[in-house]
């Protein structure tokens, strides 16, 4: 890093099996925080080999990525190819039926086959390398399969140690062996967000017809919400809370436990044992913050896509230099 220059905002890595609306709302919140320069969406991965779901998540990414002039490329969605695809939530398919007045589709699914996706380990490695030291975080909202595999990947542990400040796990579930491996071997801090958070904090469904509609009538997250719950009820927000905490850890939205060790029991439940030198913590609800959190969810997720600011060392000077080089090049 150049002397006297700050780091860019933290890089966000989001991994999920995308079986819930909550996981998509979490992505929307992360993009909302990107718009406020709280973080930069690095990449999204899924542990469920379901192309239809990936097509929807890719559409969400393209939507929040913003207008065409945005310099940053839309990264592919990384997808595990082993295992069963499971059932695609209908709400992730329905938005593609939406038509414009001229009869054309509002959203286009650009994921046709596995070649439109990336291998999770390769992409984690590539995108971790692009982060500044201790300037990234992971949010895991689903089984730990992808992250357990990553921990076995050549050079990955060293990269995680160098680049990732913490991992936030939303409602640890599924694949007990994988989650145990993640909890045991993840080389940096872990914060757990349990189901009790979802019971206390919900995403306000009414915002779909208010804030979302006002910002843009064609938002793939809002359209999935309508398909998921036509009555627009509230949604338990564990992954969304995890994303909010990960992007704004110092905002005081939640209470944070002291240090300890998280383990997964045979029944899939998470246990926490306080230890003085533990690297794990867990979040709990601060009743005084719940209303503020719900408002923040809506503000961030419904925000219009914002062109991401370019950040690179000496960006202005380098660009001037490039211009000079090009002028020099143009001389016969």
């Amino acid at each position, binding site marked *: *890093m150049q002397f006297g220059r700050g780091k860019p905002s933290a890089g966000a890595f989001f991994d999920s099996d995308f079986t819930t609306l909550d996981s998509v709302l979490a992505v929307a919140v992360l993009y909302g925080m990107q718009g406020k320069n709280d973080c930069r969406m690095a990449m999204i991965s899924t542990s469920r080999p379901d192309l239809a779901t990936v097509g929807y998540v890719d559409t969400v990414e393209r939507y929040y990525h913003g207008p065409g002039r945005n310099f940053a*490329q839309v990264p*592919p969605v*990384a997808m595990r190819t082993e295992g069963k695809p499971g059932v695609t939530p209908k709400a992730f398919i329905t938005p593609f039926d939406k038509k414009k007045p001229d009869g054309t589709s509002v959203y286009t699914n650009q994921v046709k086959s*596995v*070649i*439109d*996706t*990336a*291998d999770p*380990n*390769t*992409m984690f*490695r*590539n995108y971790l*390398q*692009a982060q*500044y030291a201790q300037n990234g975080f992971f949010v895991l909202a689903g089984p730990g399969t992808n992250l357990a595999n990553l921990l076995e990947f*050549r050079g990955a542990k060293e990269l995680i140690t160098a680049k990732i400040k913490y991992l936030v796990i939303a409602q640890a579930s599924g694949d007990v062996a994988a989650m145990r491996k993640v909890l045991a071997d993840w080389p940096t801090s872990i914060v757990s967000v349990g189901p009790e958070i979802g019971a206390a904090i919900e995403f306000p469904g009414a915002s779909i017809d208010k804030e979302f509609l006002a910002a843009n009538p064609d938002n793939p997250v809002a359209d999935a919400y309508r398909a998921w719950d036509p009555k627009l009820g509230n949604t338990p927000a564990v992954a969304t809370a995890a994303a909010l905490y990960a992007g704004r850890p110092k905002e005081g939205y939640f209470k944070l436990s002291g240090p300890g060790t998280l383990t997964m029991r045979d029944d899939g439940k998470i246990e926490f044992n306080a230890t003085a030198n533990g690297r794990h913590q867990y979040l709990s609800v601060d009743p005084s913050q719940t209303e503020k959190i719900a408002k923040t969810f809506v503000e961030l997720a419904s925000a219009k896509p914002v062109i991401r600011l370019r950040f*690179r*060392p*000496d*960006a202005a000077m*380098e*660009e001037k*230099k*490039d211009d000079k*080089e*090009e002028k020099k*090049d*143009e001389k*016969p």
Partner: protein
Amino acid sequence: MITRKTLPRRTFLRGLGSAAIGLPFLDVMAPALASSTIPGKAPVRMAFFYVPNGMIMDAWNPDYVGKFQELPRSLKPLEPYKDDIIQLGNLTHNTGRALLDGAGDHGRCSGSYLTGIQVKKSLVEIKNGVSFDQIVANEVGKQTRFPSLELGMEDARQAGDCDSGYSCAYTNNLSWRSETQPLPPILDPRALFERMFGTGLPMTPAERARQTRYRRSILDFVTDDTRKLESNLGPTDRRKLDEYLSSIREVERQIERAEKDNKQIDPKMDKPYGVPADFAEHFRMMSNMIAIAFQADQTRIVTFLMTREGSSRPYRELGIPDGHHPLTHHRNQPELMEKVRKINEYHVRQFASFIEKMKSTKEGDATLLDNSMIVYGAGLQDGNAHLHEDLPTIIAGKGGNYIKTGRRIVARKETPMCNLFVTMMDRMGVHVENFGDSTGRLQGLDLA
């Protein structure tokens, strides 16, 4: 002296002075082998033809995967050879990306192209990795006169700033012997000719002039050996030898013509002695010698920097006076993009002429092309946006009956280019677990 009826593969025609001409693969070299088995037995060669500044991808990638149908515009010159090529999609060089090092995509992408290493951004403290062609050369190169040949056509400066703080060592070399030692390309066809058919030591212009005055052709020096050899050959081998020696003579004539033309154009021109002013002519001479080097098994490994990354060469022969690199920053202006498409297609046209040469050279029942893997590629995808994924990549040749050509295959996004290198190393008989940022072998090259 050539007296045996079975000829060793490493036989040279030698003569007075420093002439030493390697021979093509002749039937007499493998009398025990049935001709149909020769394609599997002939050595596999590999070459890299590098073109800079990315491509206009709408004219490069077809909108389908699988068996070739109509080729996109930039690949049209390869239409007659489309059954002999394979196009690869989605190969990525992550080490070409900024990765916190800021501007300088041209310097990075060519520096890391064959090494898969993030090069050190510096003008003086050069640091890269050993390129994979050199790892192969260290093993396979022991069997040939030259472990590898490094060629280029434009600029061999090894110092100075060639891209936003990246040394010219990164943009002007493809092959790296060590972390700090690039192998500068030979630009001058005369120098290459003398290296291939002489002692390997460069001659001064005065020495060259003296030699030119006293001889007509390098072939004259080996007349006695040629006659002796011919008397031991059957009609097929004799014809093969005659064609081979004629191709050497043709290159010689091209070089002499270029030297004569250079003197007429401008005696003070800033080019090496035998470098022709015409791009296509220069390419033809260099690529003909690559074909000869492969044919005579002088080397099995070639890297060829057709022009260097960031090149601002104008293409007046196409009616394009603008520099290549500035044009590629077209900002989506159609007229500038069209010029870049023309340059992309022009480069491919030159490459196609080399493929024709390789395909028309018989080797047993197969061709020289069948026993080769000739990669034509770029270290940038879109030169305007400086993208390092889906790098334009073609392989011509079957790598010795291995690659199923005639189609386009597309890997998953972000698949490391180094996966292709590891796979090619396997074909060359050099087996490594990892190279650069590889994550495994590239799947599907051998599957129709």
